[in-house]
């Protein structure tokens, strides 16, 4: 093995392999993932070549320095603050997600209601001044507020399972 081959191996070998080749590691800890020249061959070269030996040692040293350097970098924020924010934010997101689900449900219910009314309208004889549309899970039976549609308009009043939210759907046309 010459210096070039030795360094080529050193550039890709795992730290464990290099440590093993330097005799710094027990055999059972040596990695075998990289196809490398035999350690004996490498060791023979390193014994005669101080520069390759230095490079191998420097690689291991740099590896340790990098690991130590990264270990020193830790979050700067206080843990207690981070946990409080995490907890609050997680709960908030859960609520928002639930609201979104409800909102999709409401929209679906409204759409279903409008389609139903339209189909009645097209058949004639069904007046839609103010109708409570019942959609499973989203429409309550509480009293809907009285709503007057403008002339030539119809209105659908939908209560949702959120008592603060009532949907008014105005649309053109008046079924007779």
């Amino acid at each position, binding site marked *: *093995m*010459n*210096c*070039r081959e*030795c*360094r080529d191996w*050193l*550039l*890709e*070998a*795992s*730290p464990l392999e290099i440590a093993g080749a330097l005799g710094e590691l027990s055999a059972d800890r040596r990695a075998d*993932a*990289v196809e490398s020249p035999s350690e004996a061959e490498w060791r023979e*070269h390193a014994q*005669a*070549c*101080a*520069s*390759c030996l*230095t*490079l191998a040692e*420097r*690689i291991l040293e*740099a*590896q340790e*320095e*990098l*690991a*130590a*350097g*990264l*270990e*020193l*970098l*830790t*979050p*700067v*924020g206080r*843990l207690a603050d*981070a*946990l409080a*924010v*995490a*907890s609050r*934010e*997680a709960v908030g*997101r*859960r609520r928002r997600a639930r609201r979104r689900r409800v909102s999709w449900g409401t929209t679906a219910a409204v759409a279903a209601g409008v389609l139903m009314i339209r189909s009645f309208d097209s058949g004639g004889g069904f007046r839609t001044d103010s109708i409570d549309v019942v959609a499973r899970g989203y429409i309550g039976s509480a009293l809907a507020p009285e709503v007057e549609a403008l002339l030539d308009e119809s209105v659908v009043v939908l209560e949702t399972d959120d008592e603060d939210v009532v949907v008014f759907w105005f649309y053109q046309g008046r079924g007779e």
Partner: protein
Amino acid sequence: MTEPRNPETELLFLIRRARAGDSQAFETLATAYRDRIYRWALVRTGDLDDAEDATQEALVRLHRGLRKFSGKARFETWLYSVVRNAAAEVQRRAARSRRLNDRYAVQGALPSTTAPPRVVEGLETRRIEGLVKRFLQELPARQREAMDLVDLQGLGQAEAATRLGIRSATLRTHLFRARRAMRNRLLETVPGIEETGTE
């Protein structure tokens, strides 16, 4: 009832409690993993501030998503994917914000808000600082992750590949490239390297 002794069992016990809404258990869990989460986020993003944000985002996702952890995968493997997703989200947000800032900067509506570079405290030598900077700034994210998991944290290549969602052969490619990139510089800096070696 006897307390579980095995660390793995202890961890699952803790997760179960946290999942059931025990805030103390969540706190213990988060405290135990926060530094590791930050480290993964840092290696993923390559930026101290993004890593800080990603750590916070990952804690939120951990809080919300613990219920989704089925226990089929190892907790760390699952958590690693949570952190990677959080980091990706933070980087997307940061990129959007940068684009917006750039747009305003071009139009002169806003002053540049680029923060001064943070000083990394506690690093004793310039050499270590240089190594960390090179690692974070010069290597692509995948190479950083591969090197961190395998060489620095001592994970097996198969486990590292699973965490990164790539094949082992791909992981090895990233790993070798990362090692070469980091070590090539040493060839220039180590004194006494000659090309005249023995045959």
